[in-house]
């Protein structure tokens, strides 16, 4: 598996970016040169220099330090949303596909309701209803995200539930719960788990979007979307205030995407 990983440069780049983000998250206090919240009006809107690598913002905070602390917020949202949405979606999808009939109809019509709105608009209305905060964004995104896993898992369950190895478990007298969790879910989870690794990036993007329009992280929190939002008014004078948070989002989403694509190949046992 390791050899296959190293034979794919794009996966390696993705892995490198993701590892870098994890390291930044853990060691943010030691890596960042300044306090991300420290206001210094005397040093406001300084261009990138050796002292302030990414420059300073409109109240003189060090953008480089803020971006490093921002990885904490973004990664937390990405991980928590996927960790909540993935098991919920997977189990519901597996039950829908495996049991079929009325149960399938009920579960899938509910997911249809969620999927019939554009995700970001649904998340916006939930976040707006609950009040702007990072926790509510997390909840809103988790609520909008699970139906995708339900759909993916259901379709892969349908494609394997009549496979001979599933039938063989029934022939030996295994109960349906065992068949579902030991035979069906392990063999239908791969596409959804690849989707989950891709989604880490998309969730971060969506959370940044919600913060950008003011529904998520509130100032002075060093959230990338919120930073982008507050840099709008100074865009003419300070290109760095918008560019670096934007780049941070881009690189993070790209990293998770590359890694997710690589995992797709790696997780297929036939390639092992």
């Amino acid at each position, binding site marked *: 598996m390791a050899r296959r990983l190293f034979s794919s440069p794009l996966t390696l780049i993705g892995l490198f970016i993701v590892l870098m983000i994890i390291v930044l998250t853990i060691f943010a206090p030691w890596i960042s040169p300044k306090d991300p919240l420290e206001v210094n009006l005397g040093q406001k809107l300084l261009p990138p220099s050796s002292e302030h690598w990414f420059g300073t913002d409109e109240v003189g905070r060090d953008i480089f330090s803020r971006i490093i602390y921002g990885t904490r917020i973004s990664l937390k949202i990405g991980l928590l949303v996927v960790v909540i949405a993935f098991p919920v979606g997977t189990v519901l999808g597996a039950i829908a596909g495996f049991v079929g009939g009325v149960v399938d109809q009920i579960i899938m019509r509910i997911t249809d309701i969620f999927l019939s709105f554009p995700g970001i608009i649904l998340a916006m209305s939930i976040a707006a209803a609950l009040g702007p905060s990072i926790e509510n964004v997390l909840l809103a995104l988790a609520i909008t995200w699970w139906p995708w896993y339900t759909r993916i898992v259901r379709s892969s369950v349908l494609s394997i539930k009549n*496979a*001979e*190895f599933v*039938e*063989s*478990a*029934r*022939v*030996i*007298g*295994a*109960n349906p719960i*065992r068949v579902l969790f*030991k*035979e069906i879910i*392990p*063999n239908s989870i791969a596409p959804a788990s690849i989707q989950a690794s891709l989604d880490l990036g998309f969730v971060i993007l969506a959370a940044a979007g919600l913060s950008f329009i003011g529904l998520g992280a509130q100032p002075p929190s060093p959230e990338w979307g919120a930073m982008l939002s507050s840099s709008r008014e100074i865009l003419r004078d300070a290109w760095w205030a918008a560019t670096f948070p934007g780049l941070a989002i881009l690189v993070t989403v790209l990293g998770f995407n590359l890694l997710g694509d690589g995992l797709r190949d790696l997780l297929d*046992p*036939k390639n*092992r």
Partner: protein
Amino acid sequence: MTLLEVKDLKQHFTIKKGFLGEKKIVKAVDGVSLHIEHGETLGIVGESGCGKSSLGRTILQLLKPTSGEIIFNGKNITHLPRREMKTVRKDMQLVFQDPYASLNPRSKIRSILETPLIVHGMNNKAERMKIIESLIDKIGIRKEQLDRYPHEFSGGQRQRIGIARSLTLNPKLIIADEPVSALDVSVQSQVLNLMVDLQKEFNLSYMFISHDLSVVQHISDRVAVMYLGKIVEIANVEDLYKNPLHPYTKALLTAVPQPDPTKKRERIILQGDLPSPVNPPSGCPFHTRCPVATAECKTEVPELREKEMGHWAACIHVQPAQLEKPRLIIS
């Protein structure tokens, strides 16, 4: 002693085309009666789509029978609840056709072989390993290969693993659904010989489903020929192959390839295709393709009758030989 007795078993599937389409009934198994003795191999042959796989799965209660009775080991198991059926399952197992689809690709061989034992409550790991190790020894898989995944084995090895899995619970009856048709010819004989050896060792009964007449001849004690969900002929293997009575069996047997090219054979080529089981022909289901069909065949449904000693056929044109007392029910 009779191990399995099937009485007038029917398996009808309802299919509905489209949202408001009319319901149609596929008579996959339509009134099959048969029996299997202890230690005996009953071969089931027929074209694809004749219902031979459905028959096997219905006997195993993977499909609920529409009507009829299945008596296994003296017990009527036709409508047993799942819990009670579980204990019966120990005694009747299935070997699958496709060795590439019948093993969970994410389970190691060890766990595939262990699962039946765990499901049936054998909690002692050492005991389970003892059973598994003695089994894999018989099928020619080494102990250190237990921690490999199915895709690391060849088709023949996989099929032997599938057979080993069916034997872990020490069953009495194995229903083998085309167990060698997905394998190379050279591997086929290997697996068949293994099945014969295991049969002797464990006193197994086989229901051997296949479309390959030569394979069935090799392994079976008795053979049943199926056509459109019905048994049209059933007899001892020698009687059936030397003296086929039903015109369908005759046609099938002339289609078996002969190893000797100088031998002249007269093939009976059947006209037309297998009729749809959704809309089977009236009367004798075979009359649309039968070379000796008469007007009567279109209306009269032929019953499976004993035409010669132990040799049953469902054709009104086969005259029964002088039997002391022709029997109507298979005993």
